[in-house]
């Protein structure tokens, strides 16, 4: 190889980008973009919440729409929540009987079932079921309205869409979640007792007396009322995702999926904080 050719090759190597550096640069650019999007998303969520809060607290109040949403979120979710609660009751009953028998603590079965269902499983299962059914429904409905300019039409008719569409749905979720949780708890306890009664004789009276023995309102009220926070999260995220949708049918699908995924994720993260909070405040 001539000297000129060697020099040309060396120059090309100097000018060519370092292949080891490129992936690192690409990854860091993506990471910066992701962090930027992350903070932008939270910023927009905050602005959205402020608009909904301001609209929801000032008249005129959309009572008619609120009642419709209470029915949509509450009554129409009841069968699904009852079914999920019932299934959880049976599962806990089967698992608890087996575990407690191993440690010779079968007498603890009613209390284990009651506390497991009411304090832990009932609220979270209700939250997840409602997040799936209502979160997806709200996300898809509002996203569809957004891409077909129906939300713009509402606003152009001098009606505040944050008040009519978002505040009513979020409030309905907040109000209905504790009631649905009570229904899920009741179904779970009934089916749990029934599953136990099929194996060993245990009257319902005995089950209730033993299960709730020494229980205070503090043990059951905070776990049930914490679902209001779940409702707030489900409603807020679904409305936010729906009302910021862009991009036609694909955007509608994305809004519905994100409503469920993000709603469920934040619900579980909130549960971590709420459980600790309840343990500290209501020992």
């Amino acid at each position: 190889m001539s000297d000129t050719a060697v020099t040309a090759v060396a120059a090309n190597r100097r000018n060519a980008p370092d292949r080891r550096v490129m992936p690192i640069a690409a990854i860091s650019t993506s990471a910066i973009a992701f962090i930027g999007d992350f903070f932008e998303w939270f910023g927009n969520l905050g602005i959205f919440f402020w608009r909904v809060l301001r609209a929801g607290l000032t008249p005129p109040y959309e009572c008619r729409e609120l009642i419709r949403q209470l029915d949509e979120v509450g009554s129409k979710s009841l069968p699904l929540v009852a079914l999920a609660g019932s299934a959880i009751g049976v599962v806990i009953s089967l698992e608890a009987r087996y575990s407690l028998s191993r440690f010779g603590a079968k007498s603890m079965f009613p209390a284990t079932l009651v506390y497991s269902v009411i304090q832990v499983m009932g609220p979270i299962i209700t939250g997840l079921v409602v997040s799936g059914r209502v979160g997806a429904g709200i996300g898809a409905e509002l996203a569809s309205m957004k891409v077909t300019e129906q939300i713009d039409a509402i606003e152009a008719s001098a009606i505040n869409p944050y008040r009519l569409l978002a505040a009513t749905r979020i409030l309905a979720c907040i109000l209905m979640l504790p009631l649905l949780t009570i229904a899920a708890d009741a179904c779970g306890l009934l089916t749990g007792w029934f599953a136990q009664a099929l194996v060993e004789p245990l009257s319902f009276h005995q089950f209730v007396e033993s299960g709730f023995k020494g229980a205070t309102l503090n043990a059951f009220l905070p776990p049930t009322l914490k679902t209001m926070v779940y409702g707030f999260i489900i409603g807020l995220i679904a409305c936010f995702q729906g009302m910021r949708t862009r991009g036609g049918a694909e955007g509608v699908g994305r809004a519905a999926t994100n409503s469920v995924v993000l709603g469920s994720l934040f619900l579980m993260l909130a549960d971590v904080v709420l459980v600790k909070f309840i343990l500290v405040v209501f020992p």
Partner: protein
Amino acid sequence: MATAQSTSILPEELEESGREPVVAVQDIHKSFGAHKVLNGINLTVNRGETLAVLGRSGTGKSVLLRLIVGLDKPDSGSIRICGEDIAGLTIDQLGGIRKKMGFLFQHAALYDSLSVADNVAFPLLHHNKALSKSERADRVSQLLLEVGLDGNLDRMPSDISGGMQKRVGLARALALKPEILLLDEPTAGLDPISSREIDELILKLQKERQMASIVVTHDLFSAKIISNRLALLDQGNVLIEGSFEDLERSDIAFVKEFLKQ
């Protein structure tokens, strides 16, 4: 020939003359990211007058309507509706001004979960709460009759044709007896017969109600029929403004090209 510079009347001049326009758009700029859509546009519309806004796709005609109704905010400039500057107003403060405006969206934007009658009743239900159920139903029937629809009250928007959807959208836009009517491509996507029917309907409503109207359209024939004045947009600004004859007499190459269609 009348150019934008020669015929546009600034709001201050009209205020001085004691005849303020119902809609006055002054030096409006609007960009979406790096894309500049409107570049210092000036327009006025007086009571009883119909202005047709023409231009190529993507020149910001629909954006202009959205800015006037307050659905988007301008980057700079002022928009005065019935003498009130809407810049900086909150969504609730805009409510009072929006009641004076009726907006027909390009695809009608009917509420797909409500029947035809409920779509038209929607603004009445929220703003005319004193109306009894029967009074509201009468008003809805009257509005639908006014736009040439009868006997379709309980059908859903998905069950009626595009032309009928436009009529329902128009009836909804008229429900609060607006002083200003904004029409975004009222004849787009309709067959020629339906388009002419919509044009005649708009003309009839103009005669009866004496509203100020802004019609965004690609349909030159329609613009010629229904408007008193036309404004042709190009590159985010008004290239020429005047009567249809003024446009026809123009020497501007783009105007000649546009009128060839």
